[in-house]
């Protein structure tokens, strides 16, 4: 709302310059967007949605009057004596959408407005058009009541029907656009057809122009929700609809006509003819609220002196009388323009606003009992970040909604959940996985010549079962930090698998890996991650190499691999990872270490070999690790040399070489029997 400073001063003699007014009202809830100096200084206020009454000069003047303690002087609103003649017939057929409608016929002489009026309108941001339209705009800016003028000669008859539109009914509005209406929209119609969309915009067919000699001035109150719905559906926002949809003053329509008549008379532009028509089938009783002094103190945390309550509320237009109930309190009648004041708490705010938030002390709420620990998910996220940043991954933040084409390959055949009203195709569906965002982030960095990228993200993903939490990470470029001392090796499967193992370990899971297929991962380089710590193996994620075709589609060089993994944080949380039960004592007896090299079939999984060894060896086998895998010269075609280190230790005694030898013999025999292994 552009408040024209001299206009304000005409209504309230504010003892301050525009800066002072701006600051004073800012501290009462009216944020200042800008101050413009010049012949007509303007303060542009941001009016919050609850204060439609302050989309007017009088509304803000009332606030200034209360703030400065200076009286408000209302402009001349005396209706000039009307000439003889017929008025119009008004029938409100849908009073739920239009509770009140006033109309007055005028004889007019269309011309231009005087300079002072034009200047004021321009300062307020409204383009002057002609004396009649300018006066209606002036009244709207002054008191917040939107009005509309119909050319009486261009209406079909002298009867106005305030009714719902017929579905499909058409109207060409003042902006020249033909609009199709639906049955929930309110129109002002003559006998034949709509001449205005109620509270939103007039029709072009009855628009006043230079030839107009007789007009009907409308000043009405329309139901906010209805105007809001219509304005939204027609995608048509006007000065009038903005005011009506937030709530205009139901008592203002006749006042608005009187004020406009007085101004038109003053300009010599028009003269009322016949009586004003005021249809108000169900007058609303005034709202009266009780305000308790104790409640005021209870909410604000300070004692407002009793005298200050009427001192604050009266200039704002409230009628305050002492309560006849016990204790300090008041009966407060709410003016009709204060649609936001509906219950006691709203009065508490009024008092606080003008008493001054700066006079409220700064205290701290008492804490009666110790607080519970933070949400487990917050703590889990922190642990994930700690581990992954230590593994060299930086944290990414990618959008929750992504392109359909980016999402589809990761949805595993399901249809990604779509938004009903996306901003653009780029933000069309909910991400089924965190991986597409990370692939795009890798591509973004790669295009900027950053080849070695490690990124991770935690957050929500949306699968067929709905919203769930996940962590994902992606790694491309070098498998180690490049250094002058050695050639860098490109990242491979075992780099990311190692990170999965570290992360699972940190969260108390014992991951197991088995070959798997995912449409977005390269076959043969894809594993499903299972938790093997419980009784049944539970799927907790996936690890592998992203399909080059996807990389190509997202602008990443298809020849360069991105390895990635995604883990289900909800599943990991369910494992109940936490503290250890007790610290194990350190071993008291020495270990015996044996290395074993065997030839096995190339396709035999390491896990199978390990399983056979574990089953064959006594419980004194405490550690088993692969330390070499070799194919090629000296090894028969189709076979591979596998070297393992076995560590034996007892917690009760020192083992003898003989018993370890015997264990090794059993292990080798089992490997021979199960896998046709040959010891080398």
């Amino acid at each position, binding site marked *: 709302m552009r408040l024209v400073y001299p206009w304000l001063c005409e209504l309230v003699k504010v003892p301050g310059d525009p800066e002072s007014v701006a600051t004073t009202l800012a501290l009462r809830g009216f944020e200042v967007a800008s101050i413009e100096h010049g012949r007509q200084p303007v303060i542009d206020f941001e009016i919050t949605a609850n204060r439609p009454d302050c989309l007017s000069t009088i509304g803000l003047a009332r606030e200034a009057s209360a703030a400065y303690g200076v009286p408000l002087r209302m402009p001349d609103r005396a209706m000039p004596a009307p000439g003889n003649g017929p008025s119009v017939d008004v029938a409100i057929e849908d009073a739920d959408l239009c509770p009140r409608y006033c109309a007055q016929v005028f004889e007019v002489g269309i011309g231009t407005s005087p300079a002072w009026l034009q200047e004021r309108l321009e300062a307020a941001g409204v383009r002057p058009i002609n004396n009649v339209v300018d006066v209606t705009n002036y009244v709207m800016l002054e008191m917040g009541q939107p009005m509309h003028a119909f050319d009486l000669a261009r209406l079909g008859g002298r009867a106005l029907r305030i009714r719902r539109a017929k579905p499909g009914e058409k109207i060409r509005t003042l902006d020249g656009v033909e609009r199709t209406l639906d049955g929930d929209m309110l129109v002002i119609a003559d006998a034949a057809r709509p001449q205005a969309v109620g509270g939103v915009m007039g029709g072009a067919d009855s628009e006043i122009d230079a030839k107009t000699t007789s007009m009907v001035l409308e000043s009405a109150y329309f139901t906010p929700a209805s105007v809001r719905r219509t304005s939204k559906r027609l995608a048509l926002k006007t000065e009038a609809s903005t005011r009506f949809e937030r709530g205009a003053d139901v008592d203002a329509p006749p006042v608005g006509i009187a004020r406009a008549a007085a101004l038109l008379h003053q300009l010599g532009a028009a003269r009322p003819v016949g009586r004003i028509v005021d249809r108000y089938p169900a007058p609303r009783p005034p709202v009266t609220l009780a305000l308790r002094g104790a409640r005021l103190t209870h909410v604000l945390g300070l004692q407002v002196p009793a005298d200050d309550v009427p001192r604050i509320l009266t200039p704002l237009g409230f009628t305050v009388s002492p309560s006849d109930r016990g204790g300090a309190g008041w009966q407060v009648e709410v003016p009709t323009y204060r649609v936001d004041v509906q219950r006691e708490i709203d009065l508490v705010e009024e008092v606080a606003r003008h008493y001054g*938030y700066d006079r409220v002390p*700064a205290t701290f709420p008492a804490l009666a009992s110790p607080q519970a620990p933070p949400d487990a998910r917050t703590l889990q996220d922190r642990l994930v970040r700690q581990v992954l940043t230590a593994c*060299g991954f930086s944290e990414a933040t990618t959008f929750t909604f992504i392109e359909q084409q980016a999402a589809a390959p990761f949805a595993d055949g399901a249809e990604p959940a779509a938004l009903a*009203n996306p901003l653009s195709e780029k933000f069309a569906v909910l991400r089924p996985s965190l991986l597409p965002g990370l692939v795009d982030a890798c591509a973004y960095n790669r295009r900027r010549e950053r080849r070695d990228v490690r990124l991770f993200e935690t957050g*929500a993903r949306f699968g067929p*079962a709905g919203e769930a939490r996940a962590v994902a990470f992606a790694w491309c470029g070098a498998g180690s930090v490049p250094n002058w001392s050695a050639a860098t090796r490109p990242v491979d499967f075992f780099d990311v698998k190692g990170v999965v193992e570290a992360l699972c370990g940190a969260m108390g899971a014992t991951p197991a890996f088995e070959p798997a297929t995912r449409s977005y991962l390269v076959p043969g380089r894809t594993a499903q991650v299972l938790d093997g710590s419980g009784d049944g193996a539970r799927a907790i994620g996936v690890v592998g190499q992203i399909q080059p075709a996807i990389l190509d589609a997202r602008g990443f060089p298809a020849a360069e691999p991105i390895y990635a993994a995604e883990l289900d944080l909800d599943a990991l949380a369910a494992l109940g990872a936490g503290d250890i039960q007790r610290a194990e004592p350190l071993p008291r007896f020495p270990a015996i270490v044996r290395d074993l090299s065997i030839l096995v079939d190339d396709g035999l999984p390491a896990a199978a070999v390990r399983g056979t060894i574990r089953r064959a060896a006594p419980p004194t086998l405490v550690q088993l690790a692969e330390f070499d895998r070799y194919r090629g010269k000296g090894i028969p075609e189709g076979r591979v040399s596998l070297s393992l280190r076995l560590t034996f230790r007892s917690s009760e005694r020192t083992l003898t070489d003989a018993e370890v030898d015997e264990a090794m013999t059993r292990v080798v025999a089992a490997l021979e029997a199960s896998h046709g292994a040959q010891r080398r």
Partner: protein
Amino acid sequence: MDIPQIKQQFDRELASAASEAAVRALRDKYLARKGGVASNLLRDVASAPAGERPALGKLANELKQYIDTQLTERLAAAAARRPAGETVDVTLPGRAPALGHRHPLTLLRERIEAIFLRFGFLIVEGPELEDDYHNFEALNMPADHPARDMQDTLYLASPVTSAVGSPATLLRTHTSGMQVRYMEKFPPPVRLIAPGRVYRRDDLDLTHSPMFTQVEGLVVDEGVTLADLKGTLFAFAHELFGPERRTRFRPSFFPYTEPSGELDISCASCRGAGCAMCKNTGWIEVLGSGMVHPAVFEAVGYDSEKYTGFAFGVGIERLALLKWGIEDIRLFYENDLRFLEQFPL
């Protein structure tokens, strides 16, 4: 032979011995069993008159010991300086382990969480998908409420199961839904913050994003006042921005709070004098807040006469832009490592 003279000569020669080899040569010259200066001296003692022999012998021995100690020390010092094998160029770069950076929004979120943990707040997290009731209706924003325009909403094409297992129709526009859910489940007192991603139908540009991060707070108990809200917000602002920044609390409007207020801090770039950054007001808006509207208490079944409370919400992106002088909000979502790696670990 004059013993002090020999000592003097030795000291001189040792002082000018520049290399380890020169020191070794001195050892040969003075201490060689055959022909060494000290050995010769002891032999001379034997041929001295019997009366002088004991005194002379003592002096000669002391000199020999002195020379031996000096040479041993010098050789030991030289050995300590000698490299064990090949030398290294210590100016070449080391093999640094890879260390990742947390996202700046996380960094700030964790700082904010740390402050409120010290203030005795609980941290709760909730679903990002919400239903109309928890996002709007329970918060005093029934259908067709004008305030819904303040938070233009992204809706789902068809309902999706949220993280709490209920059918959701929209992307939450704030984390307040979580507070409603908490109040539905637990009686007062309540003292919590709810951080997380929120969504609005705003085009992505320099200062707006359809997705951003929020921390909302809620305190409910008997006797919680607007003064408590003001004190809590001022303490928070001073913790986060530093005690030298001035704070201001002024009225505002939110449908779920009444009275409502916004917190401002004095502009850092003009120190309150007024500049482009603060729209010439000298103040920068930090967050919105207010006393919980009785209608919200009624929706969750709290006694609105007995209990009062306050709520606040702060956008982390906005704070991050202010704090680090970042001019483009999109940098937070592009994940350019050159940007991410600027922030402390």
